[in-house]
């Protein structure tokens, strides 16, 4: 096609673009994916029956605080990598804060528990399924982010894929909290993080293929 014709054709479709449309687009993808993951929990493993009571106690909020703050830090990375001129990533260190805080809580809990119970505390009742459930629940959220990226312009596809995978994993873990009855911080620190890490890894692997534009 002739370049002039192309320009004429492109400019017939000049809709106004909101200032923070990158953020909006990512938010829509994340929220839609998270709703899908929530529905998936309702339809399969179910919400923990004592959710209302658990929300009164501290351990639920420790978990949510961890996953939610990790989600936000990951989303900030994703938003930066969604632009072509992303340059140096700002705020990468923010990802470390939730991890360090949760580790501190975990150490505190360990110190107050007799060492004979440490293993039970670490493995909980669901250590075998937890990472896989987090990973599975991250799939709809990752799909939502892929939709977001259809109008975005990442140029570092591997990093962008990893950031999208990390966001999907962290949000999936946040959603998973409505099912998971585990209480100890070291459980969350290990098994939740493992699921999130797997999602990140998969994002990194598929990023160059799926995020091309």
């Amino acid at each position, binding site marked *: 096609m002739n370049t002039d014709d192309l320009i004429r054709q492109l400019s017939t479709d000049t809709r106004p673009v909101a200032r923070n449309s990158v953020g909006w687009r990512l938010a829509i993808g994340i929220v839609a994916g998270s709703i899908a993951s929530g529905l998936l929990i309702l339809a399969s493993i179910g919400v923990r029956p004592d959710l209302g009571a658990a929300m009164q106690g501290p351990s639920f909020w420790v978990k949510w605080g961890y996953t939610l703050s990790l989600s936000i830090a990951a989303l900030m990375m994703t938003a930066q990598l969604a632009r072509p*001129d992303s340059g140096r990533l700002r705020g990468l260190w923010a990802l470390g804060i939730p991890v360090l805080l949760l580790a501190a809580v975990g150490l505190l809990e360990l110190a107050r528990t007799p060492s004979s119970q440490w293993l039970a505390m670490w493995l909980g009742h669901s250590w075998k399924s937890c990472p896989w459930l987090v990973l599975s629940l991250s799939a709809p959220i990752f799909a939502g982010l892929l939709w977001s990226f259809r*109008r975005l312009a990442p*140029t570092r596809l591997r990093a962008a894929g990893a950031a999208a995978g990390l966001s999907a994993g962290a949000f999936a873990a946040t959603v998973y909290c409505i099912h998971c009855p585990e209480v100890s911080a070291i459980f969350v620190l290990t098994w939740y993080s493992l699921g999130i890490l797997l999602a990140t890894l998969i994002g990194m692997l598929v990023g160059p293929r799926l995020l091309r534009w």
Partner: protein
Amino acid sequence: MQTTEEHLRALMIDGLDGDAAAHAALLRQLVPLLRGFYRRRVRGADDDVEDMVQDTLIAVHTRRATYDRTRAFTAWLYAVARYKMIDHFRRVGRLRPIDDLEDYLVGDEFEASSIAKLDIDDLLKQLPPKQARMIRATRLEGLSVAEAASAEGVGESDVKVSVHRGLKALMTRVQGAIR
């Protein structure tokens, strides 16, 4: 440079606010910039250049939401253009990774043959263009006299005469250089 940046950025922002005329003007003004950008990087492949220019224009249009109005427009533009160039060559498969390239460059062979090629190029340049073309076709590219003749649209005897005269001229030149 400053004025170009300011000017293009103003057009981009108007386009983002929904001004179709500004957006069209922006895309038109990007064409020479992008052609220059790609020509400097890929020599001799005008089709590739035009493909990449069009791909980039489409990307500038469809991905314009990723432009941050507080940042430099040309930095954003060239980031898109660079990505489109890498993507283009990845698709065409013409870029080789460097470690693969090393296999091609291994040893003195490459150097020796490159130097020989440079010498031959120098010598052929001193001949009349027709003789140089004929020698190149029959002696370097391995065409037969008949093939070279039909490619050039001349008679076979004409090819033979040109090659003969050319080689003779080269011979005297080389011998003169040695003495």
